[in-house]
């Protein structure tokens, strides 16, 4: 469960990215976060894994107050979240397998079990058999799939994605959106920011709309 209670984020210099944001996302929900560029979508998403800290208010993730989490506890919070960022943030000198393996290496998974999980995650995103390839040899959509496989390999209960379809052509974007919908059907809580909410329209997700740092609509 994700709870934002009167959350504000002001940057040094006075720029207010978010103001008085309150909402609640229940377990297993698919929520689409929409809004124009600069509306505060990325900032909001960054508050969940404590990449950014709120200047006011409370952010609760599964009952844990992330806004007051000590720095040393942040890695353990992130291990329970699946993060897909706007840029795939892949390691381009590592194979697809090694990129997806990274979260399991970090958590110290036994190599045998980890390899099986990587294979399963790649299978899930339709990249089975591409383990040895380097990310540079993949298309933009495929790179984003690798990033998604990396995000789900630890079997997180919450998946957060920041504009995962931003730089993809419509066909690839639909494929990626379908992947997130399928994860949600499997019981994963999905919070996804996008310019194009129509990609998820058929699933009738809950929609949060941000404008100038304020929540306009919590349908």
């Amino acid at each position: 469960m994700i709870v934002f209670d009167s959350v504000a984020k002001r940057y040094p210099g006075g720029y207010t990215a978010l103001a008085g944001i309150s909402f609640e996302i229940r377990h297993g929900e698919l929520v689409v976060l929409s809004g124009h560029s600069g509306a505060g979508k990325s900032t909001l998403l960054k508050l969940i894994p404590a990449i950014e800290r709120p200047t006011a208010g409370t952010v609760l993730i599964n009952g844990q107050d992330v806004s007051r989490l000590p720095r040393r506890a942040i890695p353990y919070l992130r291990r329970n979240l699946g993060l897909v960022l706007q840029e795939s943030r892949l390691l381009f000198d590592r194979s697809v397998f090694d990129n997806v393996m990274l979260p399991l290496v970090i958590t110290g998974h036994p190599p045998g079990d980890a390899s099986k999980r990587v294979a399963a995650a790649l299978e899930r995103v339709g990249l089975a058999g591409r383990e040895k390839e380097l990310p540079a040899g993949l298309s933009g959509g495929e790179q984003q799939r690798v990033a998604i496989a990396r995000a789900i390999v630890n079997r997180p209960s919450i998946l957060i994605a920041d504009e995962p379809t931003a730089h993809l052509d419509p066909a690839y974007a639909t494929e990626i959106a379908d992947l997130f919908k399928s994860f949600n059907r499997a019981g994963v809580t999905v919070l996804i920011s996008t310019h194009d909410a129509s990609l998820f329209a058929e699933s009738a997700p809950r929609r949060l709309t941000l404008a100038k740092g304020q929540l306009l609509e919590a349908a």
Partner: protein
Amino acid sequence: MSNWLYLHVRAIAQALGRLAGQPVGTLLSALVMGIALSLPAGGYLLLDNVASLARGVSGTPEISVFLDTAAGKADAAEIEKRLRAEPELASFRFVPRDEALQQLASGGLGDVLGGLNANPLPDAFVVTLRSEDPVLFDALAAQMRAWPKVAHVQLDSSWVKRLHALLGLGRSAVLMLAGLLGFALVIVTFNTIRLQIMTQRSEIEVSRLLGATDPFIRRPFYWFGGLQGMLGGLVALGAVHLGVRALSAPVAALADTYGAVFALAGPQWREAVVIVLFATFLGWLGAEISVRRHLAVD
């Protein structure tokens, strides 16, 4: 295998991979560290050899305890009893006055001594100590002077003092050199790790986003620094061994001209371990400072 051990094994593998991934850089760094470390290591070894050479050439320093000419056998026995009770003594030898006179006569002074009515020489004890510590020498001599029927105590310690002073000076110089070059090696590792952190910045950032802890990120750099230092230590050890091998024959020839037999000794296994461990520590220290400086997060 525990998770902690697994993560360390993985960090070692990662560090070895980075070392092997840039063989020229690794070799150059190891050579720089090794050559720099071989100077104080070689200096220490040289001092050690000089100390053992001095011991061999000059023999063990002695204290001569001369008794009063009026001292009798009972007095000599009393002194002997006191010497036996002294724990710092390695050995002692009694030289009766008649034996001393004979030695003097056989030394070419027979005519002079023949003109004397009586033996003017006293009984004496020649004492050798376990230690070469000049402070201990002085203290024992002072103690012996206070014993009954002891007329004069002569200690052959001036050369010991001089040697100790010279060796002390040499050791200080070697320590200073080790400190300075050690500092330079820490800087070399600091800079190598700094460059590594810069080139791996994106991997570090991604790892943090995926839940990597600070120790997870830092561990491979510590191992890298330590392993690089260890390689430098091994190069230093090799350089010292080569130096000893190259100098052995000329030094033996020089000793031969003084009628002595002397072989230059290389580092023993314990010294070798110390050199490698010291180099490893310097590498680790450079990594520690660099990591703290360049991987700091608010």
